[in-house]
């Protein structure tokens, strides 16, 4: 019974996104803007730094803030005609709604990253293909960890008056571990180190994601209650 509601919610979000492409375009262009600004800021030749040293930070700021946009949007669309209440009234377990939203948000974030990474190779001239497998894993695991906590906090902040202000304020400090491990793993990966060097960081981010997915499943019911 559980997984059907989960997939239904996720499919609905994907269908809505395909039709409106709101959160994808806003997140993508925001990320592009951040990358362009960074390429203005860091003229690599003159400051003698390779992209490896700074790339972790750049990719992570892009990922963090673009995911906040799509997390925000994933619950704003529910608030419009009080569809939140519609979801609460469904006989399914509220955690299915949480997991459905979590899955949809992770997919949106990764879709944006899949487009941004190649573009960042053009802007910053690093060899993406060499680091791709490792980097892809780092991005997937950390984006999922970030979305796990982000989906719960997005559901919380959408119910208050100023949700755009509240979500970053709640999410960024609490997600510090994922950001720290993500940046460190990305830097090691970009520096060409093999999995052995940053594998433990990816594992830690995976634990973070697991812990807060469980917390989300247990607490989502209290958040959705009116």
């Amino acid at each position, binding site marked *: 019974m559980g997984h059907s509601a989960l997939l239904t919610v996720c499919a609905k979000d994907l269908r809505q996104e395909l039709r409106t492409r709101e959160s994808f375009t806003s997140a993508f262009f925001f990320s592009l803007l951040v990358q362009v600004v960074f390429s203005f800021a860091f003229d690599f030749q003159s400051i003698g730094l390779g992209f490896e040293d700074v790339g972790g930070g750049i990719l992570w700021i892009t990922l963090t803030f673009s995911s906040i946009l799509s997390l925000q949007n994933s619950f704003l669309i529910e608030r419009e005609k009080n569809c939140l209440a519609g979801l609460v009234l469904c006989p399914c377990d509220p955690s299915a709604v949480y997991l459905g939203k979590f899955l949809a948000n992770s997919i949106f974030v990764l879709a944006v990253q899949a487009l941004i990474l190649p573009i960042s190779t053009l802007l910053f001239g690093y060899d993406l293909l060499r680091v791709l497998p490792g980097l892809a894993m780092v991005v997937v695991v950390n984006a999922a960890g970030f979305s796990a*906590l982000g989906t719960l906090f997005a559901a919380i902040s959408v119910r*208050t008056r100023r949700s755009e202000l509240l979500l970053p304020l709640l999410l960024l*400090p*609490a997600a510090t*571990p994922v950001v720290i491990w993500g940046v460190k793993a990305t830097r090691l990966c970009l520096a060409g180190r093999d999995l052995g060097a940053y594998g433990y960081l990816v594992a*830690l981010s995976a634990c*973070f994601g697991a812990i807060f997915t469980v*917390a989300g499943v247990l607490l989502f019911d209290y958040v959705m209650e009116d």
Partner: protein
Amino acid sequence: MGFRMEALDRNLRRAEILLFGAVGILMIVSLYFVFKVVPSEVTMGVVQRIFYFHVPSAWVAFLGFFVVFLSSIVYLATRRLIWDTVAHAAAELGVLFCGIVLFTGPIWARPVWGTWWTWEARLTTTLVLEMVYVAYLVLRSQAENRDQAARLAAVVGIVGFLDVPIIYYSVQIWRGHHPIVFKSSGGQGLEPIMLKTFMLCMGTFTLFFLLLLALRVRLGILQDALAELKEHDSTAGA
């Protein structure tokens, strides 16, 4: 105000008077010990004495967040607003004492390491926790009504506390090397007199925390009673 609330209010007031007396005396004794009795730490000199208030503040802030965690769980289970009032009070105190740690830390670091801010694991964790629980207080102010604020804040109170060890661990990894001799000198390296003073200060701060908590909880109860009376007043009049 409901009958049970009045009894609680009376007990809180009685507790406050006791605590006020105890904290008053202990504070004077602690100050005497810290400035007069205990010798300066040999390497850092007199400035190390900040330690005797800095670390207890951090402990009390942590205690505050733990109280938020527990009372949030009890609130979600029982839905009695008194637990939400306790959680709100404890969060406010947590943020206050974190603030104290965050500005006594740099004052201590400046003369000893020459920089105002050191990305030392404990100080960084305190900074991140301060931001988490400031966000908790902002959430409360943005909520549409008291019941929603209580429910949503309880969820953040629980999730926020689960995050504490993870944040500390992640910061530990980030800073990599062994933590600067902040606390460890307090632990093993302390002479007996220093240890006694440290324990004295810890006790004083814990009691001070309880005093402030009692006061703030009582304030919360009275505010709720006032809101109820105002509501009653407006509907009776309408």
